[in-house]
Structure formats: structure tokens, C-alpha cells
């Protein structure tokens, strides 16, 4: 049985729809991320799970119980906030002990659990400090310890790392995942950082415009995005609109031919795509920049290749980012560094190609 179940949850703010009939199930022990741009409704959904907001309609179940009408303080959820929200008038120890004192545990038990929680986040020696004496990363860890100390049924993380600098964020990501694995607690992370979501999560739910666009493993949402919104939000993408070719006689067994009229591959000849499976007669395809390969000699194939002209090039150490012109349109290519001895210059012409399994059809609409 799933740990958290969101059933047809909608939330309106006056006339604005922040969430529209979201359905979601999160499994016991899972690290689940809600990913989306700002204003997509991810924080609204988290606040509804936490009990700070009531849904306009729909229900929330935690551990099989309907908690929709239950106030936040009855839900036994651990929450970590973006700005840490440590109590400034209390010491680190008192902050972590806060929830335990509310539960009226014995002094010894409180001490034991606080010590345990602080050692989990490696802050045992900071117990008597006050929040203002700690760095941002340390405050974040105290916030995590405080949330975990009450042994919540679910851990909710609201953009917990977005106030940290890049290097510290990487470290904390690793540590967060580590802590979650050791405690084995069901966790929901809200973030707008796709890299964070991809590297931490078991599964990701991508929210856009109040709708849950796709739910899947990091691999699935990156490799097989459900629609254009997901494809464009996660990673970079080349979008190619194509029509099914009239003649499929040249297509090898199990492949389908499409023509992209917007891209002119060679004099009056549209770009020919060979794809794995048949979809609508007019379909939007996605091609990741790193799936495009480069060749300096002409290729002996008629599909999935083109002659292009370099427009822009940027060298980013371990990789090259190229913008190339194909007819009147542009494509972006990522390629590892050692392909060229000398970097090509804008205006240079070369050939690009890709495999049919790398051209992915996207669902229409959003």
C-alpha cells in the first residue's frame, strides 16, 4: 500500500487554479521529488500534504488514513523549510528537542533522541550553540535533525538547499540522500533544480501549470519525457515537428519514416527521420543535444543525418556546445571534448547523425 496518496486534489486561490485534480501515490521509503518551475503549484501541493493549506477539493491519505481535514500538528510529519526556520531563541539542542517536549517524552528519552539526531547530521558538538552562530549548511542540518527527531511518518523538504552556495549544495545533496537511506523514511522533496531532483530521487513528479505532467524515475523522465513541457524543463532539447512520409517502402523492418519540412537537409529535401515506433501522422519529436554525433566525412545514409553549418561554439572544458544551422533552423549539439584536435570555426560545414532510438515522440498538448 502506498504511504501517501493524493486523490483528485485541486486548490484554487480566488480565481487562480494552483493545482488541478492532481493524483499521486508515493511508496513507503521512497525518495520522491516534486519538480517544476516557480509558480507551478509544487509548494502548494507540499503545503496541502503538510496541512498548512486545505485543498479546495480532493483528499490526502497518509499511511492509509484520510488526513484531509487534520491540522498540521496532528499529522506527525517532519518538515524542513527553505529558510531553515530554526527557532532563534533556542539552542540547537532545544530546537531539536522542541517536538519531543511537545510530545511530553521523558527527559532521558529526549536527551537520547536529540543526541541521536544530532549525530546523524554530524553536529553533536554544536548542541549548545544558537542558530545565529551556525553557518547556512549547519543550520540546514539542524533543521533536518529537528524534523527527524520526532520520528515522523514522512519527511517533507521544501527547497531545502536553494539558499546554499553551489559547492555546499552538492555536499548536502549527497548527505541528504545518505540520511534518507539510513533512516529509511518516505521523503518528498520540492525543488526547481532538475539536477537535484535527478540525482536524489527514486521517482520524480514534474508539475507544470497546476498539472502533474509526468511521474517516473529520473531515467524515464529524462529519456522518455511525456510531453513538450517535461522535455523542455528537464535538460536541453531539440524539438522537431515532422509528418509521416507518404511512402514507407524504404523503411527497414519495424521502423517508420517521418519528414521534417521545417528543416531543409539538402536542396529542397526535408530532413528525413527514421523512428522506432509509429505515432500520429504529425508528431513533435525530441532529440537530446548529446545524442547527436558529428562526422567530417559524408555519411552513407539517407535518414537521421544532415549537413550543417556551425553558427556558434562554446568550449566548456569537458564538452563542447555547438549551435548549428540546418536550413533556416538551428540545432544544439553537446559533444565530449576530444572529438576535434582543433576547434571548428563558425561557418565550417560538417555532418551530423543520430540513431533512430534517440528520436523520441512527445505527446501532443501539455
Amino acid at each position: 500500500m502506498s504511504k501517501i496518496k493524493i486523490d483528485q486534489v485541486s486548490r484554487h486561490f480566488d480565481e487562480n487554479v494552483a493545482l488541478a485534480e492532481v493524483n499521486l501515490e508515493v511508496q513507503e521509503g521512497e525518495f520522491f521529488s516534486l519538480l517544476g518551475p516557480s509558480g507551478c503549484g509544487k509548494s502548494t501541493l507540499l503545503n496541502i500534504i503538510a496541512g498548512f493549506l486545505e485543498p479546495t477539493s480532493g483528499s490526502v491519505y497518509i499511511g492509509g488514513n484520510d488526513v484531509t481535514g487534520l491540522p498540521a500538528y496532528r499529522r506527525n510529519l517532519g518538515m524542513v523549510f527553505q529558510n531553515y526556520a530554526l527557532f532563534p531563541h533556542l539552542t540547537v539542542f532545544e530546537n531539536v528537542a522542541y517536538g519531543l517536549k511537545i510530545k511530553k517524552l521523558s527527559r532521558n528519552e529526549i536527551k537520547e533522541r536529540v543526541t541521536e539526531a544530532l549525530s546523524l547530521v554530524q553536529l553533536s558538538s554544536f548542541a549548545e550553540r544558537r542558530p545565529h552562530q551556525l553557518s547556512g549548511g549547519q543550520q540546514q542540518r539542524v533543521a533536518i535533525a529537528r524534523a527527524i527527531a520526532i520520528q515522523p511518518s514522512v519527511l517533507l523538504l521544501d527547497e531545502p538547499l536553494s539558499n546554499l552556495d553551489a559547492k555546499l549544495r552538492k555536499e548536502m545533496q549527497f548527505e541528504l540522500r545518505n540520511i534518507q537511506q539510513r533512516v529509511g523514511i518516505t521523503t518528498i522533496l520540492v525543488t526547481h533544480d532538475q539536477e537535484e531532483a535527478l540525482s536524489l530521487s527514486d521517482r520524480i513528479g514534474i508539475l507544470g501549470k497546476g498539472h502533474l505532467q509526468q511521474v517516473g524515475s529520473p531515467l524515464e523522465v529524462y529519456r522518455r519525457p511525456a510531453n513538450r513541457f517535461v522535455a523542455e524543463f528537464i535538460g536541453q532539447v531539440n524539438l522537431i515537428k515532422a509528418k509521416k512520409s507518404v511512402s514507407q517502402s524504404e523503411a527497414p523492418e519495424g521502423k517508420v519514416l517521418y519528414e521534417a519540412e521545417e528543416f531543409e537537409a539538402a536542396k529542397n529535401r526535408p530532413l528525413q527521420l527514421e523512428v522506432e515506433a509509429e505515432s500520429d501522422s504529425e508528431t513533435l519529436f525530441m532529440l537530446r543535444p548529446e545524442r547527436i554525433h558529428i562526422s567530417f566525412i559524408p555519411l552513407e545514409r539517407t535518414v537521421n543525418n544532415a549537413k550543417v553549418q556551425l553558427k556558434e561554439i562554446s568550449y566548456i572544458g569537458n564538452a563542447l556546445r555547438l549551435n548549428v544551422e540546418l536550413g533556416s533552423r538551428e540545432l544544439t549539439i553537446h559533444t565530449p571534448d576530444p572529438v576535434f584536435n582543433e576547434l571548428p570555426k563558425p561557418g565550417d560545414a560538417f555532418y551530423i547523425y543520430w540513431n533512430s532510438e534517440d528520436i523520441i515522440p512527445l505527446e501532443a498538448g501539455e
Partner: protein
Amino acid sequence: MRKSSKKKNQLFHWLLLLPTLLFLGVFLVAPLIFLIVLSFRDVDSMLTVLSTYSFSHYIEVFSSKIYVKTIISTIWMALITTLLCLVLAYPAAYLLVRAPNRKLRALFYIMLVSPLLTSVVIRTFAWIVLLAQNGLINEILIKLNIIGEPLSLLWNMRAVIIAYVQVMLPFAVLPIATSLSDLNPNLRNASMSLGAGRIQSFFKVTLPLTIPGMITGAIIVFSLAAGSYITPLLVGGRMQPILPLSIYQQVMQVFNLPLAAAMSISLLVIVFIFVGILGLVLKRWETRMHG
């Protein structure tokens, strides 16, 4: 070059301050020094100011039973006023901060400061109209047969405190409201997520974190309440044991100016001591929270 421009800048700042400094120097510091000097002057039996100096007036203030009683009741009255103001101001400040929209908040602010926009005398006479023997409150209570005889609501310490609380409430509400609106709303959410209900969260998080606002309010209300004399004179009568009234009597009726000066300085020092203690508590609390 940087240094000289910095100097110029400083000079400019002082120039901007100069009119205020001059004004305060002439009308506050100089009279205060004059008052201090006067308080040490001896007087003869006809209350003529002599050129000799002594502590005699201070000794009189702190040894006379009546004056000591007056000092104690002044402090007591100011403390009660402060306490009542804080208790009444907190919910008002809460409402002010939580007002659902800007228009409503502006309206609340105007309502709050409106007592300050009327003159002391008019405001105080309004209280007389309300509280007098044949005033509005007594009339209504008699008409409703709740009481048979009119209550004596005026000319006592209670009336003074009631009038004070009304006037000084805004001075307590505003700093508390500021403190409340500075509060990170996630702190309350954090408290609730840790299992504390609304009331518990209020007493464990919101209230302690708004102590600075309460202390600031207390400092303002206490010093105002300990020092004003028009309100107690008009609603309490001139016989109330309140130090500012005694000073007023010494100046206007007895004409013992040095004794009045000594009382004034004593009152000032007493208020300073209270404000100083509250200020220290405030500072300690703030270093505890923010370093």
C-alpha cells in the same frame, strides 16, 4: 582624494544635523542643566532662592513620608498602565498584522492613532463626560437598574489609569505590530509541523520572539505614564499622589522652585533607571537571538 571626499561627506552630515542639535541644545539641554543646578540651591523660610548649595531638597524628597509614598504610587501607577497597555495592545497588534488586505490595515492604523490626533484636554474632558457622577456610564447603569446610586468613577487612580491606557495604547501596539510582522511565518509552521497546536505555538514561538517589541512598547508607555500631569490633574484631581502633580503644586502653588526641581530630577532618574533595566533586558534578549 577618497579621504577628503569622506571628510566632506561627514561635514555635510553634521550640517544637516546642526539645526536639530541647536534646537535641542537651547531648549532641552540648557534648561535641564539649569534645572539640575536649581535643585541644589537652598531656600530661606520665605522660599526665596539663596546662592548656597546643598542636598537638602533631595533629602526632603526621599525622607518625607508623603513624597516617598507619592513616588511609589507613581511607579505603581505607571507599571499598571504599562502592563494593561501590553495586554490590550497584543491582540490589537495581531489583528493589525493579520489584516486580510492593505485597505483594511490602513483603516486599522488610522483608528489606532486617532486618539493621538485629538488634544489632551479634549480627550480628557471626554472621559469626564463618560465617567462623572451624572455622566454617560452612570446614567446608563442607573436607567438599566443595575445600580441604585451613581458610582464614583472619576477623581481616583482608576480613572487616571483608564485614561492613560487609552492614550498610550498606540505606543504599545505599534512596536509589537512591527515585531510581529518581522516574524518569519515559517517559524509558526515549523512549530505546528513539530506537533504544537496553535495556542502552544503562540506561547512557545510567537510570544518569546516578540518580546523585543513588547519591551520597546513598555519603555515608551512607562516613561510617558510616569511623566505626564494634565491627564491625572483633569480626571484624577490634584490630590492624587502622583509625582508630576506634586511638582506642579510646588511650582504653581507653593512656589518652592528648587524643591520642584529636585523632584523633577528624581523623577527623571527613576524613569531612567526603569528604562535602563528594560533596555538591558532587551539587549540581552537580542544578542541571545541574533548575536
